[in-house]
């Protein structure tokens, strides 16, 4: 057990936790916005793939790193527009449309990748975001190393703060939350249910795509098939785990990332020699299911989640 303790107090471990948590935080915030507005967005997995791909491809083609982030966001919003058009005004099944969008976004990314780089066996690398040097902070012992993060990680936490502020402290946030609870009341206020929900899904999808782009622009330096590898589904679980609240969802993402960082390190210890490595790799998914079970009784699901709204229908 002392090995585990040594890992837990090391600065490099916490640096890894924040790094692993970043894409989860971004995409979880995206999903949270959608769900607070009443729309389950199962396009998340594919939208993360398209974000990872377009962000990387844009930088590979010569855009600056932030240009890559913007490209990913735009691509995600485009798929968000598709998802929300079908699920909001047309009120189609959010399950079916979400899975369809995931398949479409994923295959579009793979198709375009093969089209643009038909011959390559290993994808070209780009120069990714580097850890920021913050005067004063970066020189501190331990903390300096743990907080040695790229701008995109800092951005992820800033986005979480912004989402929390917007949802709870602004009229727009109130309207988004209300449209996920009681759309008829929002309509009675003279606001557009369709507009609010579509807007939430489009913005949320943009954030999911930036979460995907984190993988190619900050964590790794190229695009691989199946690199998102279920992270989107884990984020759907994190929204439930966080009881649809941004702060709790961020804590959930960090807790989750801590387990993930721990399992990578435990594989190198005596424990890793005894247990099959697949068990460690399965840990995030097992934990997600446990988290869902744990929170099932307490969750305050938005009342109108997955309930399409058709004007004039009672």
């Amino acid at each position, binding site marked *: 057990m002392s090995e585990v303790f040594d890992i837990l107090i090391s600065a490099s471990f916490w640096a890894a936790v924040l790094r692993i948590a970043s894409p989860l935080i971004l995409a979880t915030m995206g999903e949270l916005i959608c769900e607070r507005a009443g729309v389950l967005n199962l396009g998340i997995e594919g939208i993360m793939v398209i974000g990872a791909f377009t962000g990387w491809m844009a930088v590979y083609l010569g855009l600056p790193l932030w240009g890559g982030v913007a490209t990913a966001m735009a691509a995600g919003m485009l798929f968000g527009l598709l998802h929300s058009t079908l699920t909001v005004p047309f009120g189609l099944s959010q399950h079916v449309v979400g899975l*369809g969008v995931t398949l*479409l976004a994923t*295959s*579009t990314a793979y198709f375009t990748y093969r*089209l643009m780089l038909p011959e390559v066996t290993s994808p070209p690398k780009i120069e990714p975001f580097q850890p920021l040097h913050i005067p004063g902070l970066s020189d501190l012992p331990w903390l300096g190393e743990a907080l040695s993060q790229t701008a995109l990680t800092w951005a992820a936490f800033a986005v979480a703060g912004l989402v929390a502020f917007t949802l709870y402290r602004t009229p727009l946030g109130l309207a988004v939350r209300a449209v996920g609870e009681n759309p008829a009341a929002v309509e009675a206020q003279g606001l557009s249910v369709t507009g609010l929900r579509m807007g939430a899904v489009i913005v949320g999808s943009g954030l999911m795509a930036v979460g995907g782009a984190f993988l190619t622009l900050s964590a790794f330096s190229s695009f691989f098939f199946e690199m998102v590898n279920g992270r989107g589904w884990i984020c759907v679980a994190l929204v439930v785990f966080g009881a649809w609240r941004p702060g709790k969802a961020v804590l959930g993402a960090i807790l989750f990332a801590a387990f993930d960082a721990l399992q990578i390190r435990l594989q190198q210890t005596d424990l890793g020699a005894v247990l099959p490595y*697949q068990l460690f790799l399965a840990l995030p*998914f097992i934990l997600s299911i446990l988290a869902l*079970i744990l929170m*099932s009784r307490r969750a305050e699901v938005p009342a109108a989640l997955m309930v399409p709204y058709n004007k004039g229908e009672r």
Partner: protein
Amino acid sequence: MRLEPIANPSAVRRLGLPVLALLATLGVAMALATIAGANPLAVLGQIATGALGSRLAILETLNRATPLIFTGLAVAVAFRAKLWNIGAEAQLYAGAIVAVLLGTGALGSPMVLPVSALAAMLAGAMLLLGPVLLKTRLGVDEVVTTLLLNFIMLLFVSYLLEGPMKDPMGMGWPKSPALTPEARLPRIVEGLRLHWGFALAIIAAVIVWVMQTRTALGFEIRAVGQNPEAARFAGMPVNAVLLKTALLSGGLAALAGWSEVAGLKGHLSQDLSPGFGYTGIIVAMLALLHPLAVVVTAVFVAGIFVGSDAMSRAADVPTYIADMLLATALLFMVLAILLTKVRVVRG
């Protein structure tokens, strides 16, 4: 805009819109081929001949359709009850594991096929039982749990193939030992590369159709899917119906893996399924959840995959075009089906 139900949709509307959805998908296919720098009509032709152009191609398409019929049925049965089983991929592998466990010499010859088929169904059913109990007892969304189980199952298969189930003669490849000849599904016609799994899949579709249209359970599944509250109010045991649906759905999905191992591959490997479980969702939706239509759409979807593989070798169009087309077809089709029932009005 607002949606208004149409009292008596015309035949033109009911048939024309789905046809339009397929034509639109065809249009997308041609656009993608053009983007890829190929001749769109030639690409369509190559997909069609690749899928149906020769006896070999047709048999390949039917073989590819076999697991898709099973997973399509699994999804159709579950979605009918609004049970969102996205875990057919995991259930498929559960069936495949059982096929290897019982088919590599553990059982005597005459009984091995029926026993391993039933055991496979049981394994798949059990795998879906967990998420459904979590749904009925604790209200945990089954979409996420079944999705997550897919990833856990793939890692479990990887563990089995590198550990206890590894073929010692496999030259280091992570694959299972081969099934004994008695545990293999024979070919339907000697000399033709099409195994009995295909026939069993069609039989399964007929059984599911009879169950849905002629039995009390079928009626209950439909009622629960349409309105669980009303069904509960009418005195239906909603949770019990969901459980039965899950057992059936998981069992059907498991048969996909079982028949791939026993009929086609003869052993289990990590790449047994290129996402048959997920593609089953498209198969089922295109079939409007009708079990007999699942057979048709499974062959259609399999044809797109087989044809795209062949086309991709001839023209320089990436084979991922198949997944893009199926996703497009799915989205166009659900929209078209909706528009057969409602009209978009302003205001």
